[in-house]
């Protein structure tokens, strides 16, 4: 018997805008001018939220916080493609997704200030609470997709996670299950190239994360994660595939973590500042601004207005968050289970 080739695979990489904001016209997604401007506003809002969070943390007004700066395109671009009925399973570094989907800004800050009540997604938004345990939420999207299909609901289940999470068993189990059941699910990885101090090259021997999808028999694609239009396009395609019964997709957004891992981290211990400098040139917001300015949809004055508006939104949210009265100790008990045991009832009274 001779050796034969069972199958060959290719890994696609998608980019729409280059670093100068010049578009590959045929690849431009169908977005109206208002929508393009909205993407810009949301990215600016996300960055403003983030930089304010860092400032608030330094002043002791927020707890430990994981910044998203540099990852706005991956977050806003993907979330912008979702329907409100889609089920979102975020990790802990997805504030741009929350903001894009309309999560109340003060509630987001409330959570990062250490108040779990901020995690309660408002009715009408199917956003699971933040998952601090890396990667362990990915199977939840599988279950939500099973439920959607079983109940003949249109929703797609979307799990967000980082490059580090792709080393976890739950990532493997989830993608495998999603492939076997051909589920309406979407797995969005923000490869920001670091898992705290571990670079992605030490996370896997594979040349891309996207190719991992192939082993599960599902679609996998790498996109320029700092190109909001590429991320949006890839997400739209994947959602359409999911909704039409074509099964799950794994999207790797290649991006970069511009700040420390969290406010409790000091990235200078493990990565050279030059690496960060190089990525500043690929900044997702200025890239979109160049594109929109080229199309005469934006100019310096309008950009300044967008920033002013974002700052006003954030100012109001911080004010609202800080006006929320602290939770009462009894609150710890009220959501442990629907029917408290006798002992918990007594403990609640004493709390």
């Amino acid at each position, binding site marked *: 018997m001779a050796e034969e080739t069972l199958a060959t695979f290719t890994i696609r990489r998608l980019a729409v805008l280059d670093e100068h904001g010049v578009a590959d016209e045929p690849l431009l997604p169908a977005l109206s001018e208002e929508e393009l401007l909205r993407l810009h506003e949301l990215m600016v809002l996300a960055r403003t939220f983030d930089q304010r969070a860092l400032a608030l943390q330094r002043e002791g007004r927020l707890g430990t916080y994981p910044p998203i700066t540099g990852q706005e395109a991956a977050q806003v671009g993907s979330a912008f493609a979702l329907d409100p009925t889609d089920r979102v399973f975020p990790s802990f570094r997805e504030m741009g997704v929350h903001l894009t989907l309309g999560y109340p800004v003060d509630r987001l800050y409330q959570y990062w200030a250490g108040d779990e009540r901020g995690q309660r997604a408002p009715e009408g938004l199917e956003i699971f609470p933040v998952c601090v345990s890396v990667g362990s939420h990915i199977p939840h999207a599988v279950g*939500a997709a099973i439920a959607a299909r079983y109940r003949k609901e249109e929703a797609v289940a979307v799990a967000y996670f980082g490059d580090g999470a792709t080393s976890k068993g*739950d990532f493997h189990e989830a993608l495998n299950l999603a492939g076997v059941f051909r589920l309406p699910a979407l797995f969005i990885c923000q490869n920001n190239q670091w898992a705290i101090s571990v670079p992605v090259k030490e996370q896997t021997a594979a040349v891309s994360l996207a190719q991992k999808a192939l082993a599960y028999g599902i679609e996998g694609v790498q996109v320029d994660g700092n190109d909001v239009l590429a991320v949006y396009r890839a997400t739209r395609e994947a959602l359409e595939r999911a909704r039409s019964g074509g099964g799950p997709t794994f999207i790797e957004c290649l991006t970069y973590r511009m700040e420390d891992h969290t406010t409790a981290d000091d990235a200078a211990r493990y990565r050279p500042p030059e690496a960060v400098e190089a990525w500043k040139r690929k900044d997702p917001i200025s890239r979109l601004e160049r594109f929109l300015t080229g199309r005469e949809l934006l100019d310096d004055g309008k950009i300044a207005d967008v920033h002013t508006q974002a700052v006003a939104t954030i100012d109001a949210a911080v004010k609202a968050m800080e006006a929320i009265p602290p939770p009462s100790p009894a609150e710890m008990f009220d959501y*442990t289970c629907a029917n408290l045991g006798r002992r918990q009832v007594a403990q609640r009274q004493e709390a």
Partner: protein
Amino acid sequence: MAQLNMVQAINLALAQEMERDDRVVLLGEDVGRDGGVFRVTEGLQERFGAERVMDTPLAESGIVGAAIGMAAFGLRPVAEIQFLGFAYAAFDQLATHASRLRGRSRGRFTCPLVVRTPYGGGIRAPELHEESSEAFFCHLPGLKVVVPSGPYSAKGLLLAALRDPDPVLFLEPTRLYRMIREEVPEEDYTVPLGTARVAREGSGVTVIAWGSMLERTLKAAKPYDAEIIDLLTLNPLDLETILSSVRKTGRLVIVHEAPLTCGLGAEIAATVAAEAILSLRGPVLRVAAPDVVMPLPKLEDAYLPTAEQIQAALDEVLKY
């Protein structure tokens, strides 16, 4: 009324609840075509279809993780883990997510999930097929832990678990699967979670047991004036039943097949010491497995508590 064994009683409960509530969906390894390695789900895939009785890939964390997502979005999943020893891989999902989802989302998402798994020793099976690590799971606020002791309680507790708004770990004592036959009503009934059962009334000593140790305790305690409590729910504990019995008898023996140290017996003993010490006439004794790993079949009998050990403990407390 039919005489059923526990396998049949659980199968009946699942079938009846699937009939009544189309949100109930089963998933696990070999649960469909094969009807489960103990045949507990036999015939259910034929009857309800592969969409409601899902054979999954071999992935314990993935199965429980997926079940959490199903539960949060309107289904009532029943995940089968083939043996408790393999639930360790899913412990993360139970501890990190199932037990916390209601709290973490402040009630926005809940997790009405049942994880069923064969549990306990005495069946001469390979390693990790006879674990009795219930105490790990009882330490998770937000997760209920239930152990039936016979066909009647199995059906009633499972129906209660399937209707509970929160996650329940349902431990099925494998040694009892086909050992006991009992009258099991065809009608709908539940055995409420969090409620222990006085399996035998008595006044000289209280003995608390659950699962397959209840059967052994009932036999061993025959010659004694013992009140025997079948715990049924391990978390939350039915403290009223325990304390009122101890206040009556003044003596307490706890029997479990898990290792002594940090076993559930310790929690019960500490509670009795705190709340009923003045009723006690003698020490609280625990009859438990030694602090070793559950051995392979050749040493299984040396590990599991015996009738003689239970009797020795009863003799000891009755000296006071």
